[in-house]
């Protein structure tokens, strides 16, 4: 659970560094208005209020981003595929990377599995954007037997595959928090997480999570082989 606790402290840090600071600054600005009103400087107050409008919009944007990071509303309204489509469109717009979503799900999946897979996709894509120097990202969803597989691939620089064998506490200590978090999330959900990479040859993240299905689950080994 250490990694998930670390994720929570990251969310707390984001709230501390973003909305709390912006609202603190805004509170001071309101106090400046009050001081000026006491001095009868109403025109100066009007100018300050115009500035606040802009700062307030920026605070609302910051809070919306925190909300979206915690739980994107589209995940509840449109499901995993729509949420991923939306997320990838935003990444493409922001970074210029070519993002592709391949949906091979045969039926809708339950809410908890959707959330886990969305989180893993979000983390994997964020890692690509931050570290991979890639120009293309592909995200694929496959319904396999008793579960769903998510595959995130990029054409970036890859990394030393020996790092993949590290235990989660070592990954966290050495700054590879995202990789540890994805693995922990999927394993806590009873799923399986794998990565394949090579220096200069991109990276593939594969996560499988079980979902309720009348067909009965396939063995995990078979599922991972099928995804490969």
């Amino acid at each position: 659970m250490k990694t998930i606790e670390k994720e929570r402290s990251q969310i707390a840090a984001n709230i501390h560094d973003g909305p709390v600071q912006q609202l603190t600054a805004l509170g001071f600005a309101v106090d400046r208005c009050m001081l000026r009103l006491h001095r009868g400087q109403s025109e100066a107050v009007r100018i300050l209020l115009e500035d606040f409008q802009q700062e307030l919009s920026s605070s609302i944007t910051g809070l919306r981003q925190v909300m979206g990071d915690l739980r994107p509303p589209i995940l509840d309204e449109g499901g995993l595929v729509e949420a991923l489509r939306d997320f990838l469109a935003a990444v493409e717009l922001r970074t210029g990377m070519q993002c592709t979503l391949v949906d091979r799900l045969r039926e809708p999946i339950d809410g908890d599995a959707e959330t886990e897979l969305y989180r893993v996709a979000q983390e994997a894509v964020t890692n690509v954007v931050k570290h991979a120097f890639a120009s293309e990202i592909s995200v694929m969803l496959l319904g396999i037997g008793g579960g769903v597989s998510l595959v995130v691939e990029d054409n970036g620089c890859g990394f030393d595959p020996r790092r993949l064998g590290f235990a989660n506490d070592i990954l966290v200590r050495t700054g590879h928090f995202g990789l540890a978090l994805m693995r922990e999330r999927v394993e806590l959900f009873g799923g399986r997480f794998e990565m394949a990479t090579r220096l200069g040859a991109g990276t593939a993240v594969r996560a499988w999570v079980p979902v309720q299905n009348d067909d009965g689950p396939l063995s995990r080994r078979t599922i991972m082989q099928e995804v490969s």
Partner: protein
Amino acid sequence: MATLERQAPRIVVADDDPHVLKALTMLLEEGHYDVVGTATDGPSAVDLIVESKPDVAIVDFRMPNMTGVEVAEAFTRASAEVPIIVFSAYDDAGIQSAARGAGVAAYLVKGCRAAKLFATIDEVLARRAEV
């Protein structure tokens, strides 16, 4: 008839958030305090306080490299006479207790109103004058 004007208290402000630093500086100036310098991390705040010898320093709790409480500790250890007001987003009893232990002159929670900020500064300055 000549009037005696109070000399504006000289203040150093340190915060790593540029919005807060700017807004706090402007508010203090509006309240007739003289902001003699600003810093955006702990070590720079220490250097600035040593250099400019302000009447009081207002230091954010969470800053890169050094917290506001560590800044206060550095001055307590050196028996320096600059009182430090720690200004923090955390309304947390544990942090406040650590701040008191480190010799912080006052602890203010972000979101407080200007009246409270000004009153705290004036109170710290009055205590300093008594000493």
